[in-house]
């Protein structure tokens, strides 16, 4: 196969499908025609894509947690609790890590062990093992729009089962669910496999069923400069649109400097719109998601609330369509449902308090918007060029060349040459731009910012500075300054 950003033919899709469905016995229960009918019965208030469109129109910022446990009834209780006690607008189903590695056998064991132990031994909901019937029970028992959230390089069976089960939103992408989540799976394979997922959503769309798709914005969650995650998000948006996806949410993980964060959401919206239209995708509805700080959290719950609240504030001021919420247990372990609901309620309070305070595009925000756009354009245009006008093969080559590069990624397929660090105001910049295809102006801008910080701290920029920044928020600061 030659990887191309080209809509799969039905023949190609159904050929692959036949095999996928057999990966685990529950695959046999997937029946597309019947699933379409099932989707038609899902009311608007439980419909993810529709809820997002409404929020965008009203200028709302919706809240959404992460959550998933091994057993079905427990998972239902968990989600209903987050809906009622957490006042969550949108609901997730976080898939466990074995499923993400297609280790369904391990899941089966862990489900059994969890039943015996009376507590979840999995870090998420093993949807493939629960099958279409299990998923439908979930969809019918929960009063809110539902999204699959995972981190699965090869998610094809999971997609089939969860969509047939009635999920109306699906996270992931061939880059964003590979580079931060895998070590030795080639990009060629994951982009190809994710074309399958997108194509399936596209086929649902052809049958009048709108399903929301969301590339995973924050990548490694740790000091990822906006231009990197924006480039990946926009590429995945384009790849999805090509396969027929019509409702797309692009994401960004909070960096922590208010002006950079507000600017990042604005830049993402504007650039994504521009690139989709430029490349011929005129009928997609775009929304945005802001992730509260995705890196290391403080262990102390009071301090965690502060980080959560600041993320909520930035999301609301940036007017993102939704915000993914952290919990006061973040640094320590999967949250209890109570802790999860508390993160949601704190977020809701701030979003509502800031709903009436639009943040103007001040000069400071404007500079950041222009900077992020310029950087992202450099990357996107080079990717396109490397692929000879194709974003799919271009992405593979771009990662090889370090034109796309994700800091701290576990994947062998990311060059890992760039090094991010904060500037004096806490904005995330690049201390080493690696092979990013930036103009000299942009390179100088980053260098000047990092030099100014180094000077302020009376030390040279180094990997130690990067480490200090990685720990900073968990130690109660934004910029990892050396202690005096």
């Amino acid at each position, binding site marked *: 196969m030659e990887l191309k950003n080209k809509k799969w033919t039905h023949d190609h899709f159904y050929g692959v499908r036949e095999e996928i469905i057999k990966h685990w016995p529950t695959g046999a229960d997937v029946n597309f025609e019947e699933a379409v009918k099932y989707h038609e019965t899902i009311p608007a208030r439980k419909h993810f894509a529709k809820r997002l469109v409404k929020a965008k129109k009203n200028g709302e910022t919706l809240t959404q947690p992460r959550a998933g446990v091994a057993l079905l009834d427990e998972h239902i209780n968990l989600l209903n609790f987050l809906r009622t006690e957490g006042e969550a607008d949108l609901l997730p189903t976080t898939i466990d*890590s*074995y499923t*993400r*590695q297609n*280790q369904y056998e*391990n899941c089966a064991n*862990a489900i059994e*062990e969890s039943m015996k132990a009376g*507590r*979840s*031994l*999995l*870090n998420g909901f093993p949807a493939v093992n629960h099958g279409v019937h299990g998923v439908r029970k979930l969809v019918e028992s929960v009063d809110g729009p539902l999204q699959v959230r995972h*981190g699965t390089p090869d998610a094809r069976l999971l997609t089939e089962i969860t969509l047939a089960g009635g999920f109306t939103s699906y996270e992931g992408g061939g880059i964003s669910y590979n580079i*931060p*989540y*895998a*070590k*030795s799976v080639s990009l060629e394979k994951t982009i190809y496999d994710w074309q399958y997922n997108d194509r399936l959503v596209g086929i649902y769309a052809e049958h009048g069923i709108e399903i929301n798709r969301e590339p995973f914005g924050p990548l*490694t969650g*740790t000091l990822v400069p906006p231009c990197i995650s924006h480039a990946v998000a926009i590429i995945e948006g384009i790849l999805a649109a090509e396969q027929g996806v019509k409702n797309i949410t692009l994401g960004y993980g909070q960096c922590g400097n208010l002006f950079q964060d507000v600017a990042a959401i604005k830049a993402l919206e504007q650039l994504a719109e521009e690139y989709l239209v430029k490349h011929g995708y005129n009928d997609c509805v775009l929304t945005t998601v802001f992730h509260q700080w995705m*890196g*290391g959290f403080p*262990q102390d719950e009071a301090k965690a609330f502060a980080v959560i609240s600041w993320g909520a504030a930035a999301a609301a001021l940036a007017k993102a369509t939704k915000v993914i919420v952290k919990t006061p*247990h973040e*640094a*320590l*372990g*999967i*949250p*209890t449902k109570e*802790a999860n609901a508390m993160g949601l309620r704190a977020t809701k309070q701030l979003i509502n308090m800031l709903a009436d305070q639009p943040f103007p595009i001040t000069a400071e925000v404007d500079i950041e918007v222009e900077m992020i756009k310029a950087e992202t354009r450099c990357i996107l245009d080079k990717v396109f060029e490397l692929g000879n006008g194709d974003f799919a093969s271009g992405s593979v080559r771009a990662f090889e060349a370090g034109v796309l590069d994700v800091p*701290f*990624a*576990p994947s062998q397929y990311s060059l890992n040459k760039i090094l991010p660090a904060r500037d004096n105001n806490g904005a995330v910049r690049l201390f080493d731009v690696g092979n990013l295809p930036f103009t000299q102006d942009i390179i100088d801008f980053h260098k000047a910012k990092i030099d100014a910080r180094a000077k302020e701290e009376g030390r040279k920029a180094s*990997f130690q500075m990067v*480490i200090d920044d*990685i720990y900073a928020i*968990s130690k109660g600061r934004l910029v990892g300054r050396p202690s005096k």
Partner: protein
Amino acid sequence: MENNKVKVVLGVIGADCHAVGNKILNYAFTSAGFEVVNLGVLVPQEEFVNAAIETDAKAILVASLYGHGEIDCRGLRERCRESGLGDILLYVGGNLVVGKTDFAEVHSKFIEMGYDRVYEPGILPDQVVIDLKNDLGL
């Protein structure tokens, strides 16, 4: 020169992809004079054991962040014994179990599994380096 350095095997066990702490530990142990055999993330038990045998490492540092540590780490000590690594130092750290848990419980659970040292979430590498030097009589 290189040969004088004590070797340690480092990796993140199971289906776990958390890479940031791994990179920092790699840097810290290298800076402290060890030769780090870094297996990265998503490392099965046998890979830890094989690497330790191949490189004649003096310790295996196992990380588990994502919550499945309890399942993934079980049996590693036995596997070491079976492979002739016997009582090679086994350290484990990260967010070892699912959920926020009293650390004392987690500690004794992993000690029982045969780990020599068990670290709380948020431990800084400096402390681990000191402990390792102590345990190895360096």
